[in-house]
């Protein structure tokens, strides 16, 4: 634009305000996509009900069952390393058989080291029960079990590690979990709050990027 001073550092002539805005918006888009290892912005074909998202975030925020009791959806600058970390909430699709199915995504080109995986279920009021969780498949794998005393309806976190570690090491995308409840009425629909409502079961995975070829050593 005539008459307005150009860029003092690079002497580039001044841009029209609209051109400057368009330029900066484009730079912002490229920066964010690049840092998230995305070629383009994701197209959300099955949006999750906002109430389910808010419920899950509130659950994590209240810190129920968080090992560190920090009670927040913590920001992730882990002190030992400045490696980028991820916390992933995946919402279950409940199959007619009662199986819970999760579509997990591996950030492209990045090895992930999973630190924590928790399944959150909203259970109806119950007496003394034992809930068992399996990795579904030809040969199902026991992931853990938890005894629960008699309680009103509410959310319960179930840790799936370290049993689930091997699943994350393969770039599988679909995780199918089978639930069995001893001491409950036979069908899951009676003791598990239905997935279609705002109490959709969800899985929280805490992982961090691992250098390619990085070996995790046991201390």
């Amino acid at each position, binding site marked *: 634009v005539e008459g307005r*001073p150009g*860029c*003092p*550092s*690079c002497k580039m002539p001044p841009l029209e305000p609209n051109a400057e805005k368009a330029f*900066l*918006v484009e*730079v*912002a*888009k490229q*920066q*964010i996509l690049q*840092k*998230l290892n995305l070629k383009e*912005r*994701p*197209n*959300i*074909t*099955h*949006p*999750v009900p906002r109430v389910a*998202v808010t419920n*899950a975030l509130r659950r994590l925020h209240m810190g129920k069952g968080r090992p560190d009791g920090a009670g927040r*959806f913590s*920001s*992730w*600058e882990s002190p030992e390393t*400045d490696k*980028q*970390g*991820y*916390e*992933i*909430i*995946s*919402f279950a699709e409940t199959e007619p058989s009662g199986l819970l199915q999760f*579509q*997990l*995504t591996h950030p492209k080109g990045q090895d992930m080291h999973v630190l924590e995986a928790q399944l959150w279920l909203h259970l109806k009021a119950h007496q003394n029960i034992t809930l068992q969780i399996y990795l579904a498949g030809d040969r199902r794998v026991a992931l853990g079990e938890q005894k629960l005393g008699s309680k009103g309806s509410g959310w319960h976190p179930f840790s799936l590690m370290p049993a689930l570690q091997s699943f994350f090491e393969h770039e599988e*995308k679909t995780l199918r979990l089978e639930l069995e409840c001893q001491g409950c009425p036979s069908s899951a629909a009676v003791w598990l709050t239905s997935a279609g409502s705002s109490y959709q079961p969800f899985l929280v995975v805490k992982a961090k990027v691992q250098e390619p070829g990085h070996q995790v050593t046991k201390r």
Partner: protein
Amino acid sequence: SLSCDQNSEVCCRKDYYVDFRDIGWNDWIFKPEGYQINYCMGECPVHLAGTPGIAASFHTTVFNLVKANNIRTAGRSCCVPTQRRALSLLYFDPNSNLIKTDIPDMVVDACGCS
């Protein structure tokens, strides 16, 4: 760090905010609502070289040696970010999983001559 205004020529921080709603990204980025894409611009005249940026950068010792030994420096210092912070993003991936990550060094908080 100086914030740029219409007339400043000296190294400063230029603030700019991109609202995700304006660019139609608010459906997949859950939080925050926008991105503060600040950047640095402006002159670094010789008497300003090293202020305030150098103090915050790892060139301090080198620069002091240069000054102490009266070495004539060729070239000039540049207006660069001297302080940055992470951008925390909560976004949906193509499978509608909600992902939270902190992208380091995405927001420029301060600029200086270095």
